[in-house]
C-alpha cells in the first residue's frame, strides 16, 4: 500500500474499502466486485439532506436546486431547476441554483457514468432523475400536511410552494411543514405529473437565474478567484507539440519584482508570482531550451495534402492504419446511367477559443486535502487525474465548480490538461498554498486540443429519377477517442456521426462509407457539435448539388429523401422551417435562401438562411430555425442556444481557421484568428416543434446547420459550391 495514499485517506476519513478501491484505481488495477462509481467516488464525503442530493429547502421555504452540471452558458442551471420546481410545485421566484460538489456516485451523468457535462446531455440525463427528486419531495410535504391536519393526503394540493387542503381551509408554506416533511421517508417511485399538468415547463417563465450576476460583474469565474495567500503561475510551454524541456535559466525571471519561484513541471516551466502581471513579466525573460527530437514537424498543409492523397487512393498507408467501414450495402462502384457528383471537402483545425482562457486554482498539501476551484466540465476525470498526481483517493479531491467563461468542449479532456498542470505546480509549492494557473490567450491557442483537420471525398451517382443510387464516402480525420479509456475497438463514431446513419444514406440503395483515422502530434478534441461540425456540411451541401443536378427544389428534394428514409422528425422540422421562412415565396431582392437539416444529440434542426453577397462574401440576415428537441423545458433558452449556436457555426463557416506550421500554432490571438463579430450576427428566429417526448439536446444541435445553409444560398446565387471552410480566409 502506498504510504502517501494511506495518509491522504487518513486525512479524508476514508474507509478501508475506500482505500483499497482508490489505490486500485490510481494504479490502474481492476478490482472485481466494484462498480466504477464505487472506485471513482472512493474517499468522498458529501452531506445529503432529507430531500436528497438535489434539493435543499430552507426554513423560510426557499428552494435550492443542486446542479450536478456546470453552467457555461448553455442555460442548464435554469432548466434543471425548472424540472425540480415543476414536480415539486415550488414557487419559481423562490428557487435558486447551487453548483454541486464533485461526487461521482451522487452526481454522475446518468448517460456517462461519471460526473461530467457534455454531448448536450445535461437536461436529457437529468430529466427523470430530477422529476423523481421533485415529486418525492412534494410527496413528503403532502404527507406531512396530511398528518398535521389529519386529513386525507389525496385531498391535498400544492401550488407555488403553498400546500393546501381546500375543504378544511388549511394551508401552509414549505417552510412551515419542513420538520414534518423531513421526517417522512421519500417514496422510491413517486407519482409524476402528466405533461398536460405542467405549469412551468415549456413556458416563458423558465428564465435564467444568473443574468443579474452576469450583468453586474458579480458572477464568479476561476479568473476572479482570489484566496488568502494565493500565488499566480504562468507556464512557458513547448513551442511545438511533443517537445520537452531540455533546460532553463531563470536568473532574469527571478529578478522580476513579485516573482516567487520558477519551477519545472512535466508540461514546461512555471513562473510563480504574487500577481499575474509579475508572472507574465517573469516568463518574458525566462530562457528555456527545448528538446524537439520527438516533436511533431508537420503542419496543416502537409496533413491536408496527405489526407487528400489517401482519400483518392494514392500513396501508401502507414503500418496499422487502415480504412474502416462505417456504412456499407450494395455495390456503390457499379456503373449506371445517372449523373455523377464528385467533390472533396476540406476543414481546418479549429480552436475552441472560449472567452475565458483556461485557468485553475489548486491547493495541495494542506490540512484540508487537495482542493480545486475551477470550472470543471468533467469533475470525475479531473478528480482521477489530480489523485494520480497528489497520491490521494479520487473522491477525496474536492472541486468547487465555478461558472465557466465558455468551453465548447475544451474543458473536458481525458488528460485534464490545464487542471493537471495547475496541480503539478501547487504540489511543488505545497503547504496548501492556493496557486492560480493563468493561461494567456496565446497559451490557450498554443495548447491545442483542436477540432481535427478533416478531409471528405464524396461521389454520388443519381438514378433516372434524380435520386441517389450509389453513394461513396471517404473521411480522413484524427480520432477523438484514441488512447482514451473510452476508445472503441473499431472506428471512432465521433469521426463520422452525421454521415453515418444519415437519412440520405438510408435512402440510397448502394453505400460505401469508410473512414481513415491517422495519428499525428496535434492534440484534438470534441468541438461544439463534434463530428457534425464537418459531416453536416458535407451531407447538406452535397444535397443541394444533387438537387441542382436533378433539377429539383432543395426542400422538396430533401422531403422526398426523408420520406424514403422514414425520417418523420426531419420532415416535420423542415416543413415548419419552410413555412415560417416563406420558402414558397420569392426572397427579397438581392437575397438568396439556403436550407439545411441535421440531427445530432437526439434533436433535429432545420434552418433556412437568407444570404446577400457583399463584396463577394456572404452576409447572413434572417435565419429561420425549427427544432425538435423533445419536451422543451425553457423555450427561451432553447432559442438562446439556437441563436448562439448559429453564431458559433457561422463563425467557423466564415472565419475560424487554426493553421499549424511545422508542429507549432501559427495563430495565437484574435488579431490573427478572426471570429464572428457583432455586425455579422444573423437574426435568428426559433420555432420549437411541440413534443411530449423526453427532452434531447439543445446546446450543440444549433451549430452545424448554418454553414451548409449559407453555402447552399451562395450556390443558389452564384452556381458555385464551397468546398473548403472557412469561406473567407484570413
Amino acid at each position, binding site marked *: 500500500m502506498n504510504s502517501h495514499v494511506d495518509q491522504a485517506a487518513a486525512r479524508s476519513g476514508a474507509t478501508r474499502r475506500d482505500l483499497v478501491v482508490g489505490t486500485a484505481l490510481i494504479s490502474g488495477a481492476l478490482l472485481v466486485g466494484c462498480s466504477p462509481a464505487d472506485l471513482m467516488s472512493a474517499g468522498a464525503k458529501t452531506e445529503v439532506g432529507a430531500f436528497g442530493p438535489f434539493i435543499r429547502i430552507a426554513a423560510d421555504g426557499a428552494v435550492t436546486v443542486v446542479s450536478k452540471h456546470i453552467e457555461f452558458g448553455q442555460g442548464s442551471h435554469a432548466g434543471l431547476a425548472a424540472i425540480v420546481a415543476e414536480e415539486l410545485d415550488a414557487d419559481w421566484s423562490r428557487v435558486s441554483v447551487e453548483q454541486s460538489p464533485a461526487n461521482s456516485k451522487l452526481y454522475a451523468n446518468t448517460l456517462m457514468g461519471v460526473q461530467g457535462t457534455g454531448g448536450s446531455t445535461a437536461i436529457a440525463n437529468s430529466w427523470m432523475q430530477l422529476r423523481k427528486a421533485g415529486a418525492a419531495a412534494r410527496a413528503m410535504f403532502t404527507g406531512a400536511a396530511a398528518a398535521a391536519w389529519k386529513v386525507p393526503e389525496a385531498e391535498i394540493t400544492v401550488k407555488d410552494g403553498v400546500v393546501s387542503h381546500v375543504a378544511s381551509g388549511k394551508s401552509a408554506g414549505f417552510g412551515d411543514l419542513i420538520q414534518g416533511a423531513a421526517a417522512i421517508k421519500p417514496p422510491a417511485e413517486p407519482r409524476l405529473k402528466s405533461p398536460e399538468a405542467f405549469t412551468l415547463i415549456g413556458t416563458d417563465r423558465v428564465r435564467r437565474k444568473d443574468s443579474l450576476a452576469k450583468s453586474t460583474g458579480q458572477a464568479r469565474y476561476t*479568473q476572479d478567484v482570489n484566496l488568502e495567500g494565493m500565488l499566480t503561475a504562468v507556464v512557458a510551454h513547448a513551442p511545438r507539440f511533443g517537445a520537452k524541456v531540455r533546460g532553463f535559466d531563470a536568473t532574469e525571471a527571478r529578478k522580476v519584482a513579485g516573482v516567487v519561484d520558477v519551477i519545472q513541471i512535466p508540461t514546461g516551466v512555471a513562473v510563480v508570482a504574487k*500577481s499575474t502581471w509579475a508572472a507574465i513579466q517573469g516568463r518574458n525573460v525566462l530562457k528555456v531550451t527545448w528538446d524537439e527530437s520527438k516533436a511533431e514537424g508537420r503542419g496543416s498543409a502537409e496533413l491536408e495534402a496527405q489526407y487528400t492523397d489517401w482519400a483518392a487512393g494514392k500513396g501508401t498507408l502507414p503500418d496499422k492504419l487502415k480504412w474502416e467501414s462505417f456504412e456499407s450495402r450494395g455495390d456503390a462502384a457499379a456503373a449506371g446511367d445517372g449523373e455523377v457528383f464528385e467533390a472533396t471537402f476540406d476543414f481546418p483545425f479549429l480552436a475552441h477559443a472560449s472567452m*475565458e482562457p483556461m485557468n485553475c486554482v489548486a491547493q495541495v498539501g494542506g490540512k484540508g486535502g487537495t482542493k480545486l476551484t475551477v470550472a470543471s466540465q468533467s469533475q470525475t476525470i479531473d478528480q482521477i487525474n489530480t489523485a494520480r498526481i497528489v497520491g490521494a483517493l479520487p473522491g477525496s479531491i474536492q472541486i468547487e465548480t465555478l461558472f465557466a467563461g465558455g468551453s465548447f468542449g475544451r474543458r473536458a479532456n481525458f488528460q485534464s490538461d490545464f487542471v493537471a498542470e495547475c496541480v503539478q505546480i501547487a504540489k511543488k509549492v505545497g503547504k496548501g498554498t492556493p496557486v492560480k494557473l493563468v493561461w494567456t490567450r496565446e497559451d490557450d491557442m498554443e495548447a491545442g486540443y483542436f477540432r481535427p483537420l478533416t478531409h471528405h471525398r464524396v461521389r454520388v451517382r443519381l438514378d433516372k429519377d434524380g435520386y441517389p443510387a450509389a453513394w461513396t464516402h471517404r473521411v480522413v480525420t484524427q480520432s477523438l477517442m484514441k488512447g482514451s479509456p473510452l476508445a472503441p475497438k473499431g472506428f471512432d463514431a465521433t469521426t463520422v456521426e452525421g454521415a453515418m446513419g444519415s437519412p440520405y444514406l438510408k435512402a440510397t440503395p448502394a453505400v460505401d462509407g469508410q473512414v481513415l483515422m491517422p495519428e499525428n502530434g496535434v492534440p484534438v478534441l470534441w468541438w461544439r457539435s463534434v463530428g457534425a461540425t464537418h459531416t453536416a456540411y458535407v451531407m447538406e451541401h452535397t444535397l443541394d448539388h444533387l438537387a441542382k443536378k436533378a433539377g429539383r427544389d432543395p426542400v422538396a428534394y430533401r422531403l422526398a429523401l426523408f420520406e424514403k428514409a422514414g425520417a418523420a422528425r426531419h420532415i416535420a422540422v423542415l416543413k415548419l422551417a419552410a413555412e415560417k421562412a416563406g420558402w414558397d415565396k420569392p426572397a427579397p431582392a438581392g437575397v438568396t435562401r439556403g436550407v439545411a437539416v441535421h440531427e445530432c444529440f437526439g434533436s433535429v434542426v432545420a434552418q433556412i438562411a437568407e444570404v446577400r453577397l457583399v463584396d463577394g462574401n456572404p452576409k447572413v440576415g434572417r435565419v429561420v430555425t425549427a427544432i425538435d428537441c423533445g419536451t422543451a423545458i425553457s423555450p427561451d433558452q432553447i432559442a438562446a442556444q439556437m441563436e448562439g449556436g448559429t453564431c458559433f457555426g457561422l463563425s467557423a463557416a466564415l472565419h475560424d481557421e487554426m493553421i499549424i506550421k511545422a508542429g507549432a500554432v501559427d495563430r495565437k490571438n484574435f488579431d490573427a484568428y478572426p471570429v464572428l463579430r457583432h455586425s455579422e450576427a444573423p437574426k435568428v*428566429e426559433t420555432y420549437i416543434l411541440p413534443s411530449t417526448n423526453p427532452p434531447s439536446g439543445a446546446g450543440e444541435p444549433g451549430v452545424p446547420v448554418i454553414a451548409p445553409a449559407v453555402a447552399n444560398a451562395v450556390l443558389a446565387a452564384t452556381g458555385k459550391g464551397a468546398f473548403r471552410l472557412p469561406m473567407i480566409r484570413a
Partner: protein
Amino acid sequence: MATSLEINGRTVQVEATPDTPLLWVLREEVGLTGPKFGCGIGQCGACTVLANGAPVRSCSLPVSALSGMKITTIEGLGGTHPLQQAWVKLDVPQCGYCQTGQIMSAAALLASNPRPSDAEIDAAMDGNICRCGAYQRIHAAIREAAQATGQATGQPTAKSRA
C-alpha cells in the same frame, strides 16, 4: 511609485509598476473583477472600462497613462443602469464572461449617442467578441435600454422568436 486614479468616484492610489496594464491593477490591486481578461491585446473587449467616459481596453493601457483620469468599471454602473435592466429582461448573458465589457461599450455608446441606429450599434459593438454568440440579444438589449430611457427613435429590432 504610486499612481492616482479616480475609480468609480473614489480616489485610489495604486502601487503597481507604471507599465502594469490597468486591467491587472483593477482586478488584483483594487479588487474589481468585473472587467475580464480575454486576450491581452485589446482585440476582444472583455476588459472594457470607461476612461473619462470613453470606452478603453484596460488590458492594453499601462496604468501610468491613466493618471488622474476618471475610470468607470461595471461595478460603477450601480446594477440598475438601463442597460443592465435590459440585459436581465432579455436574458442576454450565456456564459457571461464578455458581458461586462459588452455593457461598458454599450454604456459609452448610449452616453454619446442616445439614439443609435442599427449600424451605429454594430460599429460601436464590433470590438467586443462574444463566443457564445449572444450578439442578437446584446443588440436588442441596447435598443431596449435606449427606448427605456425615452431616447430611442425608429423601430426596435424584431424579437428573436415569434
